């Protein structure tokens, strides 16, 4: 081996880890194509895109930061209310609403991250759950501000970029959500492959060693948690804007629980898991609910039990293993 060979090999290896895989191009091509090919499904697809973003946010916390959260709806709902109130106050530009929701949720995430840092896994689950329950009760009580159980009334959202009015069939909303999802995905992808992203993985992998190589463990977790809260807030704002309604339901516990299910279905730690999970979950919910409206949760439950008992890989007959390899998941 000549002297230059290991350098070139190492450089190539590090490039390869972050390189776009063919399946990723296919994934996004199919996603873009769905806008053109399925115009009748845009309302459902819009919802899926929003939950995909929300699940991407949880993947940052859980798959990369290693923090199990049962209260991620707190940041989703907070962003939704922020965008809704801004619109109520007459600032109806959707992008302005997104920015406000992002800032508000990131601020909430930053502050609450210090609570989440305390203690072990179980404590963290309880803390995340408590934060979301407190927020839910606050929104319930502060009727003058949030409308309480009736939700925020009278939201009107202005046209996107001053040109495209939100339509009832969801064409504009879906395009809007998809572009936001894609842009935020690109940012997340860059960040998880950056030195910062690798240090977050290191903290999840072994916090003791992370500190022993000089990483401020707490700050890493604060960073990734705040970033995830920002993402969740934007997802909440997208839902608020495209439905022009915000209710307590956005902060409800079942949101956080469903979200965790989506991520578990799709797999954690490779960014696509949440998005695939959101698609499977929502599609199943929609499809099974058509057949048996009362029992769709039974089928979701059954899928989960099978996932756990048999294993995700074997259920999908290795296709997901291949997909993951193709998407470049590590470990």
């Amino acid at each position, binding site marked *: 081996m000549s002297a230059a060979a290991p350098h070139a090999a190492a450089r190539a290896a*590090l490039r390869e880890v972050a390189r776009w895989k063919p399946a990723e191009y296919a994934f996004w091509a199919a996603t873009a194509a769905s806008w053109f090919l399925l115009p009748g499904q845009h309302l459902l697809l819009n919802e899926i895109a929003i939950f995909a973003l929300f699940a991407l946010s949880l993947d940052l916390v859980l798959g990369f930061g290693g923090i199990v959260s049962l209260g991620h709806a707190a940041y989703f709902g907070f962003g939704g209310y922020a965008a809704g109130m801004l619109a109520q106050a007459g600032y109806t530009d959707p992008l302005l609403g997104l920015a406000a929701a992002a800032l508000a949720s990131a601020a909430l995430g930053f502050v609450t991250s210090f609570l989440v840092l305390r203690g072990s896994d179980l404590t963290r689950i309880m803390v995340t759950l408590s934060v979301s329950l407190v927020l839910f009760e606050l929104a319930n009580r502060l009727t003058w501000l949030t409308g309480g159980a009736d939700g925020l009334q009278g939201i009107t959202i202005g046209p996107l970029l001053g040109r495209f009015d939100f339509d009832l069939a969801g064409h504009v909303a879906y395009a809007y959500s998809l572009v936001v999802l894609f842009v935020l995905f690109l940012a997340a992808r860059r960040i998880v492959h950056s030195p910062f992203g690798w240090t977050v993985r290191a903290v999840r992998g072994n916090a003791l060693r992370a500190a022993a190589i000089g990483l401020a463990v707490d700050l890493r977790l604060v960073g990734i948690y705040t970033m995830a809260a920002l993402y969740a807030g934007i997802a909440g704002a997208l839902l608020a804007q495209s439905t022009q309604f915000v209710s307590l339901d956005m902060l409800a516990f079942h949101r956080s629980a469903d979200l965790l299910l989506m991520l578990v279905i799709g797999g954690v730690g490779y960014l696509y898991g949440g998005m695939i999970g959101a698609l499977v979950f929502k599609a199943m919910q929609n499809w099974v609910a058509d057949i048996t409206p009362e029992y769709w949760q039974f089928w979701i439950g059954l899928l989960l039990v099978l996932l756990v008992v048999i294993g995700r890989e074997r259920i999908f007959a290795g296709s997901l293993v291949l997909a993951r390899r193709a998407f470049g998941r590590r470990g």
Partner: protein
Amino acid sequence: MNAALEIVGLSRRFGGLVATNDVSLRLERGARHALIGPNGAGKTTLINLLSGVLAPSAGRILLDGTDITALRPDARVHRGLVRTFQINQLFADLTPLTTVGLAVSRRLGLDRQFWRRLGSKGEIVDECVAILERFDLLGVMNERVGALPYGRQRLLEIALAIACGPRVLLLDEPAAGVPEGEREGILAGVAALPVEVSVLLIEHDMDLVFRFAQRISVLVNGSVLMQGSPAEVAADARVREVYLGEEVHG
């Protein structure tokens, strides 16, 4: 001139148990200093106190003349005090290359960069390759760390510490549990440590200790029994009694 590392009257009590009892120790620049002692003598406790995982009940730790007793573990690393672990503490899902890469990034202050790709800076890659080569890890640099043979993981323990740019290195039993066939690799790795780094080696493997150390301290029941050159320690009757006599080394 200041010692590279100086420990002054360091003590640590766990309830009634005194794990570290008034230990004082001077590590000169470029030292190859070994700390030996029977099981339960408090060697790992001492490393935990030095690296900041535990807080001492009394005493001070000076790194190059500066008191670091109150600093957090990561702040001590920034000042050049780095340790390895007796039981591997690695990132099982990463590769040796990314493991060393992130440590080098940290040392160069690039660990908060969130927009550039890891390794997009050539100097980082160059340094990673140099470190991996020194510890004979180039051939496995893209394997998953958790799947590496135990001996390779022990080498990565040391390589990762070197990637942090230590001035003082605390080696906690680098040869612990390494099968015979891989021992030479560890010995070579320890011998390949940069000369300017001051090393405190904790080890049970007497062969390694006497090959490596210029000076030896013997720790018994949390206290320093004696310090001296390898020849002095080997000749000391008390040491033979409490340590070498009791524990026949294989």
